[in-house]
């Protein structure tokens, strides 16, 4: 029987969950829908992550990709990057895995973002965690202003959530643009790094919040482009990946100088990390 987490409980013990869906997304990424065996809601806030255990293999931190507005189950996007993630890829509906969390900070959907125009800047797999915030905003549409979603990938076949993206793009007051570093014979869209999408964005800096999540190289350039629109570090949020083992502030792996990415992050207000040397 599952109980609510008491302080004396074992913070390292995963709770069992069952795979409801496992679908390929790209050559490297699979989509998973899971349900906690306890019947309890995961209770994640957009941008948080869970520690996923595969019995006998190990544990890896993975962002929750679904919005908490979706009840009864939650979703992950997993890139095959090594032992644990490969083992997750092999799971089929009905298989069990272990879940700890949710952990970490979240995108301020009920805070600073409320009532504002929002720019989502996502690179590659960075769309997976940001999707939880995008869907949260879509499900509470009246609470937010104009929404701009920028998505950059290395090439067209790496794009995630192609159908869902079309649905977002069709909505009122939503602008969606995408780009790839290299096109292929069928690609008719933009070619170039994500910042090429940001040159002629019209932004009202005083009433806009930006969310940035992508590979390590992306942040500096994306933030420079946001600065050019007049935005300041106070209204930019970044989600930063680090090596994580425990998720609860003990193992030391996730430190960004003095900050613990597992507890004080992964979502940081840029103003809080702009001067932290190891951050960006």
């Amino acid at each position, binding site marked *: 029987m599952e109980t609510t987490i008491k302080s004396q409980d074992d913070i390292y013990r995963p709770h069992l969950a069952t795979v409801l869906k496992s679908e390929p997304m790209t050559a490297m990424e699979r989509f998973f829908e899971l349900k906690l065996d306890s019947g309890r809601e995961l209770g994640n806030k957009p941008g948080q992550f869970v520690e996923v255990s595969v019995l006998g293999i190990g544990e890896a931190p993975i962002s929750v990709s679904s919005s908490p507005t979706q009840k009864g189950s939650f979703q992950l996007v997993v890139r095959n990057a090594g032992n644990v993630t490969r083992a997750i890829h092999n799971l089929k509906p009905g298989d069990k895995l272990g879940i700890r969390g949710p952990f970490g900070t979240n995108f301020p959907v009920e805070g600073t973002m409320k009532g504002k125009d929002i720019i989502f800047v996502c690179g590659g797999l960075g769309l997976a965690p940001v999707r939880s915030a995008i869907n949260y905003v879509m499900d509470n549409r009246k609470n937010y202003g104009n929404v701009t979603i920028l998505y950059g990938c290395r090439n067209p076949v790496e794009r995630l959530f192609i159908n869902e993206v079309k649905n977002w793009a069709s909505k009122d007051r939503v602008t969606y643009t995408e780009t790839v570093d290299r096109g292929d014979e069928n690609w008719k869209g933009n070619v170039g790094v994500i910042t090429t999408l940001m040159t002629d964005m019209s932004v009202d800096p005083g009433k806009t919040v930006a969310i940035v999540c992508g590979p390590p190289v992306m942040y500096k350039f994306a933030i420079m482009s946001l600065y050019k629109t007049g935005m300041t570090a106070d209204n930019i949020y970044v989600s930063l990946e680090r*090596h994580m083992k425990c998720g609860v502030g003990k193992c030391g792996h996730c430190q960004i100088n003095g900050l613990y990415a597992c507890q004080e992050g992964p979502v940081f207000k840029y103003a809080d990390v702009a001067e932290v040397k190891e951050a960006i």
Partner: protein
Amino acid sequence: MSIKRVDLATLTTWIDGLTKKERVIGVQAKGDRFAFGPLARAADLRLDYDVTILPPKTFFQPPKETLMSFNKTSGYQSVVEDKPFVLFGVHPYDMAAILQMDEIFSQGTYDVHYMTRRKNATIVVVDVYRVSPNVFAGSMGTSHIEDGYDILITKIGDDYLVDGKTMSGKSLMLGLVAAPDASESWIEQRKMVWEYNKQRLRKHDLKVPPSKWPKLLEEGYDNPIWEERANLCYSCGSCVLVCPTCYCFDVRDETNWDLSSGERIRVWDGCMLTDFATVAGNHNFRKDKSARFRHRYLRKGKYVPTKIGGQIACVGCGRCVTACTANIANPVEVMNRLAEGE
């Protein structure tokens, strides 16, 4: 009065009694050095040791420990080691380190594995009488300690002052009821031992008080010393493995041959090792040796202190100084150098 004055014969009889009744871990000779280990009899105990090879943290956070067992049908079950023991002969600087670890493992998210072992421990601290070659606890304010232990033993002349601080300490001392209470003048003499040790336990001449470390390190972030010293670093991790205040870890699964059951284990890890901060895609957030070298110092002198009420996470045991074959790990040298720029 719970402070007893005990001669060597009485002390020996008492400790022999303890080894029969309790699981006692004590300091013993290991070649020409010293180590904590299960103690069979008082004669093996070496209260005159200078420093142990590994700190006593191994009994609270072992180099390898089982966090849980798992199997395909019932999932994950926590494994918590829950056996009382007596840790005999801890030096004050190591006790100071244990208190820091207690704070780390209990604050915020409670680590039931560490804390259960800790609660099961009755700790006997012994004031240093043989000084190790690299100790600088005298400069770090950890050459003596007045709190946190269960029993404190101080050698004065040929006799021992045995001071029971806690209930569990006092109950272990029931075997000493017949011994005379220590007189006021003896208790006064203990203060002199503390004063004396503060002076003696300074084998390296630290020129900056610990209170100044955080600021010095912050300002010294771009100091050339990191690069200079780290050039010689082997990234072997010895300096962090022997450190009583280092607690970083890795977690792994070990699967049995049936492939459906096994154990999740926790092992020591350290920020000086090359891949400590590497993530998928082979991106290493502390790729340069100098960045890892600097991180260790900033952690000791700035990052961890902010988590534990300002105490510096170096207790001056000097183990890293001895362990480092490249001869670059000495905190005193680094802090003195940073201070030179002042």
